[in-house]
C-alpha cells in the first residue's frame, strides 16, 4: 500500500510532542501514589473493554556502559521473554492463552514495560506484568539466543539508510556522551554485552521510587489501586541515578559525516542540538518546528523541496526533547545527483527563517492545525498512555494536556523569531549523508 506521506513519521512526531482539542473533551489525569513511590497516572476511557498501561523508569540507553550500547534494550528483551517462575515456552503459552500483550523497550532516557489486555483478562494480565518486572529469569541459554538474534537484526539493519544515518548522527552530536549511540546498539557493542551487564542495570535502575505507571482504559482508580498494591508492594528502593543526573552535551557546529551505501538515493540529514523537555521556550520552538518541517504539507521545507521542485517524497524536521538537549533533525532522501540541490534549498529556508522571514499568516496556520488536531492526538488508549507516561517521566504538570492548546495559542510571532534566530542559523547545523560513494 502506498501513502502520500510517510505516516509513521507523523505518528512519531505526534508522540514526541504531546498535544490536546476542545478543552471539554480531555478527561483529567488522575494521580495516586503507591507506598513504594510509584506514581500512578490514570485517564479513564470506557468506550472499549480494554486497559493499556506503561510503567516507565529512568533506565534507558543512556545508562548503557561505555561500548556496550544496547544493554537496556537487551534487558527489555529479557524481561519480557521469560521469568523465574516460567520458562519462555510456558510464558508465551500463558500470555497467548489470555491474549495478554506484554512488551518492554528502551529509549534514550526511558525504559518501559507495557501491557494491553481485555478488561476480562486484567487480573491475569497484571499477574504477568508484575512477574515480568519483579521475577526476572536470567536464563543463560535464552540470553544467548536473544543476543545472537539482536546481533543478526543489527546486521540486517545496516541495509537501511535511516539506521546508518541515525548511528552517524548520534556519534556526531553526542561525542563521549550517554546519548551518543542508538538504543538498539550495534553488532560490535551487542557482542560485548554479558548477562551480568543486564543484571547490573536492573539492580541499579529498575526501582519504584521515581517510576511512573501510566494507565488508560476501561477502569477507575478505585478499582486499579488495590490490584496494583497487591502485586507491587514488595518492590522497593530508589534508582542509583535519577533522570536529571546527566550533563548536557557540549554541542557541535559545521561538522560532517558521510556513510557510503550502494543506494540510488542520498539521505541527507542536517542536525544540531534542540531544546530539552523542560526548556522554558518549549512551546515557541514547537510551533517554529511545525512551520519549518514538522507540519507535513504546508510546512516551509515540504513546500520548497517537494511541492515547488519535486525533489523528494518527504522532507521533515523534528526535535527529540529529552532530559537535556536532544537532537534537532532535518531529513530528506532524493536521487543521489539531486542531493546538493535539495540541501541548498533546505539551507536557504533555514537562513530565511533565522533572519526573521516568518509571516504571521503562516504562524496562524500552524497554530490552527496544532490546536484543532489536539483531540485526535489522544483518541486511543495507546496514544494516551504514551502522553501520560511522558508527562510523568519528565515531571510535567498534570494539567499539561488541558493547558496545551492555550499555551500554543499564546505563542507570539516575536517569540518564534527569537527561537528561529537561536536555532535555525545554517552554519550551526551539522550534516550526515548516506548514499553511493560516487556522489559523496
Amino acid at each position: 500500500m502506498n501513502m502520500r506521506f510517510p505516516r509513521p513519521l507523523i505518528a512519531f512526531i505526534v508522540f514526541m510532542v504531546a498535544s490536546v482539542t476542545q478543552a471539554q473533551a480531555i478527561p483529567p489525569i488522575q494521580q495516586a501514589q503507591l507506598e513504594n513511590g510509584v506514581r500512578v497516572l490514570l485517564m479513564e476511557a470506557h468506550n472499549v473493554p480494554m486497559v493499556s498501561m506503561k510503567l516507565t523508569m529512568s533506565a534507558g540507553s543512556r545508562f548503557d556502559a561505555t561500548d556496550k550500547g544496547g544493554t537496556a534494550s537487551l534487558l527489555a528483551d529479557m524481561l519480557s521473554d521469560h521469568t523465574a517462575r516460567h520458562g519462555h515456552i510456558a510464558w508465551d503459552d500463558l500470555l497467548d492463552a489470555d491474549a495478554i500483550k506484554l512488551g518492554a523497550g528502551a529509549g534514550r532516557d526511558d525504559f518501559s514495560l507495557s501491557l494491553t489486555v481485555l478488561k476480562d483478562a486484567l487480573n491475569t494480565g497484571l499477574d504477568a506484568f508484575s512477574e515480568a518486572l519483579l521475577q526476572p529469569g536470567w536464563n543463560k541459554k535464552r540470553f544467548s539466543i536473544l543476543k545472537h538474534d539482536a546481533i543478526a537484526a543489527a546486521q540486517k539493519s545496516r541495509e537501511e539508510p535511516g539506521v546508518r544515518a541515525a548511528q552517524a548522527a548520534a556519534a556526531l552530536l553526542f561525542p563521549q556522551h550517554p546519548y551518543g549511540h542508538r538504543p538498539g546498539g550495534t553488532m560490535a557493542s551487542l557482542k560485548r554485552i554479558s548477562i551480568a551487564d543486564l543484571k547490573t542495570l536492573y539492580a541499579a535502575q529498575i526501582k519504584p521510587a521515581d517510576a511512573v505507571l501510566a494507565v488508560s482504559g476501561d477502569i477507575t482508580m478505585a478499582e486499579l489501586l488495590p490490584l496494583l498494591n497487591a502485586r507491587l508492594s514488595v518492590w522497593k528502593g530508589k534508582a542509583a541515578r535519577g533522570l536529571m543526573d546527566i550533563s548536557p552535551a557540549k554541542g557541535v557546529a559545521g561538522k560532517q559525516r558521510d556513510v557510503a551505501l550502494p543506494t540510488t538515493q542520498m539521505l541527507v540529514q542536517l542536525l544540531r542540538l534542540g531544546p530539552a523537555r523542560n526548556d522554558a521556550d518549549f512551546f515557541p520552538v514547537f510551533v517554529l518546528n511545525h512551520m519549518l518541517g514538522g507540519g507535513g504539507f504546508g510546512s516551509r521545507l515540504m513546500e520548497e523541496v517537494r511541492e515547488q521542485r519535486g525533489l523528494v517524497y518527504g522532507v521533515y524536521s523534528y526535535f527529540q526533547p529529552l532530559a537535556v538537549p536532544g537532537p534537532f533533525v532535518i531529513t530528506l532522501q532524493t536521487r543521489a545527483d539531486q542531493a546538493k540541490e535539495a540541501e541548498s534549498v533546505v539551507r536557504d529556508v533555514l537562513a530565511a527563517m533565522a533572519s526573521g522571514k516568518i509571516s504571521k499568516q503562516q504562524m496562524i496556520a500552524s497554530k490552527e492545525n496544532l490546536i484543532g488536531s489536539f483531540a485526535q492526538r489522544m483518541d486511543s488508549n495507546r496514544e494516551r498512555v504514551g502522553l501520560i507516561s511522558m508527562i510523568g517521566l519528565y515531571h510535567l504538570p498534570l494539567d499539561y494536556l488541558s493547558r496545551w492548546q492555550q499555551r500554543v495559542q499564546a505563542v507570539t510571532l516575536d517569540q518564534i523569531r527569537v527561537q528561529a534566530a537561536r536555532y535555525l542559523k545554517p552554519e550551526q547545523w551539522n550534516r550526515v549523508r548516506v548514499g553511493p560513494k560516487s556522489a559523496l
Partner: protein
Amino acid sequence: MPLRLMFILSLFVSFCVAGASAAELQQATFKNGVKLIVEEDHSAPVAMVQIWLKVGGRDEVPGKTGLAHVFEHMMFKGSKKLAPGEYSKRISAMGGNDNAFTSTDYTAYFETVPASRVNEVIAMEAERFAHLALRDKDFQKEIRVIMEERRMRTEDDPNSRMFEELSAASLRLHPYRNPVIGWMQDLKKLTIDDVKAFYKQHYVPGNVVVVVVGDVDFKQLKKRVASTFGRMKARPVMPRFNPTEPEPFGPKRIVVKLPAQLPMLAVTIPVPVWKPGVNDTEAAALALATHILAGGRSARMSRELVDEKRLAFNTGAGYDESAMGLDLWYAYGMLGSKQTPEAFEKAFWKLLDEMARKPVSSKQLAAAKRNMTAANIFAQDSLYLRAKQIGHLEVVGIGAANRDNWLKAIEQVTPADIQKAVAHWLIRDRSTTGILIPEVKS
C-alpha cells in the same frame, strides 16, 4: 517487505471484525451508485471520513502500472474551486489531517477532523472528485516525487525489492503480480493524457463508498452526501479486472541478487479468499493456520525455526482473507550470517507437512481464536482502523454487512479443518520460493 505484502501483514494483525463493542452500521445508497456507511461513536468530538473508490492497480492496462497511485498525488493538486495544495491547507486549518492510500484493489482518501467540520469535508471531497484539475505542470512534478517514493520504498530496500520480484514470479495473470507504485519503466512513460483517460473512466459515482466513523449523526450526514456526491450524474461503471489465475503446475523459484547484508528466503502461494456463505470454514481455517504459524508469542515458526532449531533470526507469514480474487499467502525467514536458505527451507516445509498430518492442539487453537477476537476488540480503539475495515470489506465485494460473520467463522473452525486447509493449499507444488542473496555488502 513489499508494499502490498506489508499492507496485508498489518491488516492481518489488526483486522477487526466487530466485537461486542462495535456499534451498528447504518447505510444508504444513492441513485447514481454512491454508497454511504456510518458508524456513530460519540465518545470523542472527532470523526474519521474516508472516501473509498473501487479503483486500484488492477484497473491499469499493461504498460501503465502506477497510474491508480498517481491519483493519490494528483487529488491534492487542485480542482475547479481549489488551487494546488489548497485542499490540505483547508483541512489543516480546521485541525485536521488528510492522507490517502492505494492498493491493487482500491484507492482511499481520508481525513480526521473535529466532528463539527465533517459536512465541509464531504463537500470538499465531492468537489475534487468531480472537478479535478489535472494540469500537466503539476503532473510533471508529482511523477518525479513518485519516482523518489519508489526509490525510497523499493529500489533502495532489498527486502521490498525481493518481494516485488517474487510477486511478479508467483502469478501469471492476477494483478497482484504488479507493484502498486508501478514499475520504474512505466512511470517514466506515463503522460497527463493517461491520467486524464483513467480519471474519466474510473472516477465515477458508482465506484464511491463514503465511510464515516465518529461523533456524527447518520440522518444529517445522509442529507449532506445526497446533496454532494449524491447529485453527480450517474456514469457507466467498468467491470473490474479479476482474471482466474491458472493453477500452478509445480514449485517455482527465483534468486534475487542485490546489495544487502544478509540473505532472506520467502515463499508465496496463491490461496482462496473469503466468500461469505461459500467457503467460511476454509478461509477461517487458513487464517487460523497462519496465526498459529506466525501470529502470537507462541507462533510455531518462531518457536521451532528461530528458537529451537536456530535456522533464522526472524520469521513471519501472512494471509489476507479479504483480498480480491485470490490472496498471495506468504511466509519468510530472515537469515543470520551462519544460517542457510537450504536448512531453513527444509525445516519450513517439514513444519507445514506436520501441520497437514497432525491436528493442532486444542490449547493452541483456543489461544489463536482468543487472540484474533481480542485483536478485533483492540482495533475498536482506533477510528482509522474501524473505518478502514468497513471500507475495505465494501470495495472488495464482501460487504461491510458481513463484518460480524468473520469471527463467527473463526469460532467454528476445528483442528481437522486446519489440517485440511494446510494439506490442500499450503503445499510445495503450489509455491514460489524467492531467495535474496547479498551480492555485495551494503
